[in-house]
C-alpha cells in the first residue's frame, strides 16, 4: 500500500497537459490534412493550366513538342487511351537544376486526344512547399505546446501557494487538534467550496467529539464524586463495628475486608477525580519551581518506607534546577515516582535520584516488568501481585502532558529508569 502519493494540483496539471498534448496532436494532424488538400488543389490548378497550354500547342503545332523542354512536360503519342484516365500522381525526389538541391516533385500522368490523335502527357512540378508546410505545422505547434505547458506549471506553482493555503491551514489544524482543546477551525477563511465543506465537516466532527468527551468526563467526575459520600458512610460504619470489642475473630476479619475494600474504592474515586482535574487543567498556578527542595521534602516523608525496605538512597541533585509547572502537580509527580520506585525496588537495593541539565531521573533496582513496557503508563497497569490501583504512573504521564514535560521509561541492567525532561517547545 506504500504507493506514491501525488499532490492533487500536480495530478490535475499532469492530466490537463496530457489532454492538451492530445488535442494539439489531433489539431496538428487536421491542420496538416487541410493544408495538404489546399496545396494539392493549388498544384492541380497549375497542372490543369499547363494541360490546357499543351492541348493548345498540340492543336496548333503537334511537332513542336520535341522543342519544348522536358521539365515543362513530356508528350508521347499513343495508340489508345487506357480506361480510367482521370490522371495519376506520384511524388519523386529530383535534383533541382538551378539550386542543385534535392527537391520533391510531383508528377502527373494524363492522357488527351487532339485532332483524333491520342497523347500521353507527363508533367512534373515542384511540390516542396507542400511537405515543408506539413513540417511547419509541427514546428509551430510544438513550441506553442511547450510554452503553454511551462506557463501552466509556473502558474500551478504560484497559485497552489495561494489557492491551497486555506487547505493546508485546515490540515495543520486537524493535525494539531487535541481532544479537550476549545480551538475552533472557523477562523480559517476560504472562498473555495470544497475547502469550506471540509472545514465545516471537521468543525461539526470536532464539536461532536468534544461533546461526547465532555459527557464522558462529566460522567466519570460525577461518578467518582457521588461515590464519596456513600463510601464515607460505609467506612464509618465498618470502623464503628470494629471498635466494638464484642466481635469474634471471624466477624472482625469480614468487617476488616469490607473496610479495606471501601478504602480501595475511595482511593480509586480520588485518583480518577485527580486525573479529571488534571485533564480539565484545574492546576494553573504555573511558575518556576525548584526541584531539589521538593525531592528532599518527599524523601524525608517516606523515610520510614525506605528504611523498612533497607533501601540505600543516592542522590545527585542540581540545587538550581527548576521546572515551569504547577507546584501541586510537581508534588504529585515526584511523590508518585518515588512511591513507584520504592514499591518495585528489591529489598536492600539502591535507589538513585538525579537531576541535571533539565532532566530528572529516578532509578531503582528491581525485577523486570512482566508486561510490555510500552504499557507502563496505561491506567490500571501494574506489576503482578501488586495491590495498588495502577493509576500512579498514568497520573504522572497526564501531569507531564499538561506541563510540557516528556517522560520515558527504560529497563536496563536490572534497573527501572524513569526520566522526566522538559520538551523543546
Amino acid at each position, binding site marked *: 500500500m506504500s504507493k506514491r502519493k501525488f499532490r492533487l494540483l500536480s495530478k490535475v496539471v499532469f492530466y490537463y497537459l496530457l489532454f492538451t498534448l492530445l488535442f494539439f496532436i489531433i489539431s496538428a494532424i487536421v491542420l496538416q490534412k487541410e493544408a495538404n488538400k489546399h496545396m494539392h488543389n493549388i498544384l492541380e490548378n497549375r497542372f490543369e493550366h499547363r494541360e490546357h497550354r499543351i492541348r493548345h500547342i498540340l492543336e496548333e503545332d503537334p511537332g513542336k513538342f520535341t522543342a519544348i523542354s522536358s521539365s515543362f512536360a513530356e508528350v508521347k503519342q499513343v495508340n489508345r487511351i487506357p480506361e480510367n484516365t482521370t490522371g495519376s500522381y506520384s511524388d519523386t525526389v529530383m535534383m533541382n537544376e538551378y539550386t542543385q538541391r534535392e527537391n520533391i516533385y510531383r508528377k502527373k500522368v494524363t492522357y488527351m486526344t487532339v485532332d483524333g490523335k491520342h497523347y500521353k502527357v507527363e508533367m512534373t512540378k515542384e511540390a516542396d512547399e507542400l511537405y515543408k508546410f506539413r513540417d511547419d505545422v509541427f514546428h509551430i505547434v510544438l513550441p506553442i505546446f511547450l510554452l503553454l505547458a511551462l506557463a501552466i506549471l509556473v502558474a500551478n506553482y504560484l497559485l497552489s501557494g495561494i489557492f491551497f493555503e486555506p487547505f493546508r491551514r485546515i490540515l495543520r489544524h486537524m493535525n494539531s487538534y487535541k481532544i479537550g482543546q476549545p480551538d475552533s477551525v472557523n477562523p480559517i477563511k476560504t472562498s473555495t467550496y470544497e475547502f469550506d465543506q471540509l472545514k465545516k465537516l471537521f468543525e461539526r466532527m470536532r464539536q461532536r467529539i468534544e461533546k461526547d468527551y465532555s459527557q464522558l468526563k462529566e460522567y466519570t467526575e460525577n461518578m467518582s464524586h457521588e461515590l464519596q459520600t456513600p463510601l464515607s458512610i460505609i467506612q464509618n460504619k465498618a470502623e464503628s463495628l470494629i471498635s466494638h470489642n464484642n466481635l469474634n475473630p471471624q466477624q472482625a476479619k469480614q468487617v476488616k475486608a469490607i473496610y479495606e475494600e471501601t478504602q480501595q474504592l475511595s482511593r480509586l474515586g480520588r485518583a480518577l477525580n485527580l486525573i479529571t482535574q488534571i485533564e480539565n487543567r*484545574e492546576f494553573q498556578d504555573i511558575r518556576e519551581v525548584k526541584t531539589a527542595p521538593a525531592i528532599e521534602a518527599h524523601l524525608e516523608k517516606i523515610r520510614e518506607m525506605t528504611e523498612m525496605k533497607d533501601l540505600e538512597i543516592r542522590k545527585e541533585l542540581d540545587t538550581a534546577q527548576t521546572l515551569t509547572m504547577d507546584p501541586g502537580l510537581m508534588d504529585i509527580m515526584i511523590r508518585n515516582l518515588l512511591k513507584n520506585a520504592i514499591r518495585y525496588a528489591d529489598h536492600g537495593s539502591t535507589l538513585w535520584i538525579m537531576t541535571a541539565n533539565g532532566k530528572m531521573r529516578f532509578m531503582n533496582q528491581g525485577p523486570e516488568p512482566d508486561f510490555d513496557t510500552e504499557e507502563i503508563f496505561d491506567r490500571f497497569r501494574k506489576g503482578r501481585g501488586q495491590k495498588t490501583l495502577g493509576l500512579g504512573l498514568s497520573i504522572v504521564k497526564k501531569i507531564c502532558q499538561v506541563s510540557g514535560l516528556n517522560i520515558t521509561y527504560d529497563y536496563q541492567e536490572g534497573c527501572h529508569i524513569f526520566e522526566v525532561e522538559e520538551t523543546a517547545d
Partner: protein
Amino acid sequence: MKLLLIEDNKQLADDIAGFFRENGFVAEEAYSFQQAREKIGVYEYDMMILDLGLPDGNGLDLVAIIKEAHPETAILILTAKDSLDSKVTGLEQGADDYLTKPFHKAELNARVHSILRRKFSGGSHQISLNELTIDLSARKASIHDQVLNLTRKEYDLLLFLVYNKNRLLTKESIAEHLWGDHIDQADNFDFIYNHIKNLRRKISRAGKGNYIRSMYGVGYKFVIEET
C-alpha cells in the same frame, strides 16, 4: 462545646454528629443551605463542620455568612470534590481546615480538636490525661513529669492516639494521618507496628504500663481511664 454539622446526607450527618455527641459535644445537624442559615441566625456555635456540596446552595457562601454573624466560630470544610479551587477559596474566606471525603472519623476528630484547641485553649497548650501530659507548643510528652524522648513521628502518633483515646484507630487512618498521600492502602503497614512498638517501649520505660492495645490486627486503641 457546641457544634453544627451541615451535611445533606442524613445518614452521614447522623454518624458524625453521633460521634461528636459521644465525645461530649452538643452537636446539631442541618441538611440544607436554608436550614443551616436559619440555625446560624438563631444560635451561636463554637465549631461548624460544613459540606460544600449542598442541594440548595453553595456551601462556600455559608462561610461568609457565619464569619459575619459569629467571627469566632471555627470552620472545617468537608467536600467530596478534591478540588484545589474550593479548598483555596474556603480557606481564604476564613475556614480553618479542610477535609476530603471519604475521611476517617479519627482524622476528623483530631482536626476538630486541634482547631478548637488553637482557637479556644486560652493560652493553655497542654493536654493532661492522668499521668500523661502533652505540651502542644513545645511538642513534648511526659509521664509523671518525666519527658519521653520521642521522634517527630512518634509524637504525632501519640497525639493522634490521645485525641482519639478509647477509640479504634485503623492502621489506614494512622498511616494517612502520619504520611498522607505517600501511603497507599496496599502498602505494607509494618512500619506502623514499629512506631507503635517504640512508643510503647518509651512509655513503659517511663514507668507506665501498656496504653496501646492492638485490635483484631486492624488497628490500635489508646486505652486510658481518666480518674
